[in-house]
């Protein structure tokens, strides 16, 4: 029997206790705050350097059907145990609506049928997990830019927040809910899509049904699954622990281009 080294499973296991939130917040750090703030400069440097190089909507590599991973690993949450989500899943997500609100001119509530009626994009891309593995999958969905155009961004809008149905770490204060955020550079990139299809079929629950984000020039943890709500904001500092995402709140980089 092989014992998997699965960071996320370990974390989920530990997270079942109510103390997990407090524990992870006080986890011993290898670096003092001063050292850490110096080390964090590298993330800014990396993001600026990549943004300089990523001009003219440079695309992530697109592959062919022959390149698809035989098995696309499901990571993170495999099936959200949230009751409301389970009811939606039982109904085939017929009652599911994607809320689009925040700094928009026209808040939207989009059904899967609404999304499928919008322009679609299919892309075969490589998914790179922060742990090091990669899988190639085929994604079909609506470009996020189409949804944002339909809602109309208000002046000052800077980020798209992705609120998800899965609580990845059980906590008393609900801070373990998965969420993510990207800025408008990535939000309007042609390969940034809200995917409802995978490998030619409906998106499976293990991979984020009914809708997940694909932001192809960043790592796997940015590809939020089980999307419930897009919130357009000018800052993500007031959400959860203020770092812009579930893993970001737990020490990972907000800019996950490397």
């Amino acid at each position, binding site marked *: 029997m092989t014992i998997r080294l699965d960071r996320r499973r370990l974390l989920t296991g530990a997270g079942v206790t109510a103390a997990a939130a407090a524990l992870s917040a006080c986890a011993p750090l290898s670096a003092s705050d001063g050292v850490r703030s110096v080390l964090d400069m590298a993330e800014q440097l990396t993001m600026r350097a990549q943004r300089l190089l990523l001009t003219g909507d440079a695309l992530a590599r697109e592959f062919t059907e022959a390149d698809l991973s035989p098995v696309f690993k499901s990571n993170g949450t495999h099936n959200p145990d949230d009751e409301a989500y389970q009811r939606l899943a039982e109904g085939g997500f017929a009652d599911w609506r994607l809320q689009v609100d925040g700094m928009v001119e026209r808040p939207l509530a989009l059904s899967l049928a609404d999304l499928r009626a919008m322009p679609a994009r299919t892309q075969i891309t490589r998914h790179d*997990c922060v742990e090091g593995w990669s899988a190639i999958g085929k994604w079909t969905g609506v470009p996020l830019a189409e949804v944002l155009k339909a809602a109309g961004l208000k002046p000052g809008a800077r980020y798209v927040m992705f609120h998800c149905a899965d609580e990845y770490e059980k906590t008393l204060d609900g801070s373990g809910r998965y969420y993510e955020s990207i800025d408008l550079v990535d939000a309007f990139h042609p390969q940034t899509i809200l995917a409802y299809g995978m490998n030619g079929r409906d998106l499976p629950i293990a991979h984020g049904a009914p809708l997940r984000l694909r932001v192809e020039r960043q790592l796997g943890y940015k590809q939020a699954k089980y999307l419930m709500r897009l919130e357009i904001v000018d800052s993500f500092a007031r959400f959860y622990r203020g770092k812009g995402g579930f893993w970001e709140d737990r020490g990972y980089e907000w800019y996950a281009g490397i």
Partner: protein
Amino acid sequence: MDGIDRSTAERAAPKRRVLVRRHSGTVRLTHWVNVLCFGILLMSGLQIFNAHPELYWGQYGADADWSFLALEAKRGDNGAIEGVTRIGALEIPTTGVLGASAVNGEIRPRGFPNWATLPGFRNLAEGRRWHFFFAWLFVINGAAYLLYGLLAGHFRRDLAPSRDQLAPRHLWHEIVTHARLRFPKGEEARRYNALQKLAYCGVAFILLPVMVLTGLTMSPGMDAALPWLVDLFGGRQSARSLHFIAATLLVLFVVIHLAMVFASGLFNNLRSMITGRYAIETEEPKP
């Protein structure tokens, strides 16, 4: 007879110890910055590797795909956790070091052991933070070294093997004398020997650039910016494996490098890389 002849000759021309300028300030500074970067990049790299201690070839690779190298943990017959290093189909028991090692006194699944990683406990996010900061420092330092080496003539003058050094007979002679831990003396010690030059060139112009390029190929952002990176190494997972293999070769280089530093005079070598002055024995008459 031979021995007597030589000692007579030595007596005839008494040797004198002189300090020569061996390393420029730029070489010394970039060398030590590189030492710091390499140590931290290696240990934080092992921390990152531990998040998924398997290597693949090609564009993709995950649990269900074939890996040619893996540091695994298995449950033994008696229920204890055992570490296994798998190379292809070959399984080598490595409990305690690779695959499974002590965490707070208890054997746990762990690719590389805690003492080899930065930080010294399981934390991928912290490992990445150290790795990318020192990757930047390493690249800036390396660029400064390359620029200096080209402009100041360091590569041409000190690193490029000269024609006489590349003669097969000479190379063989150096291999034999190195194996006996006998090193060039006198005038010949003024320059690097051929094996040194080849090793340094291989590290500076092949291994270290491969480390940087394979590292960048693992970045989804860089792959979009520079798509040729993916083709150069045949895929992200190939690049990840080459990153690991090149790192292993660099560790091998450092081990041999340190052994040679000790064998050929620790104090003299250290002084030359700190102050720039290196002592050689010369047969020149006193001025």
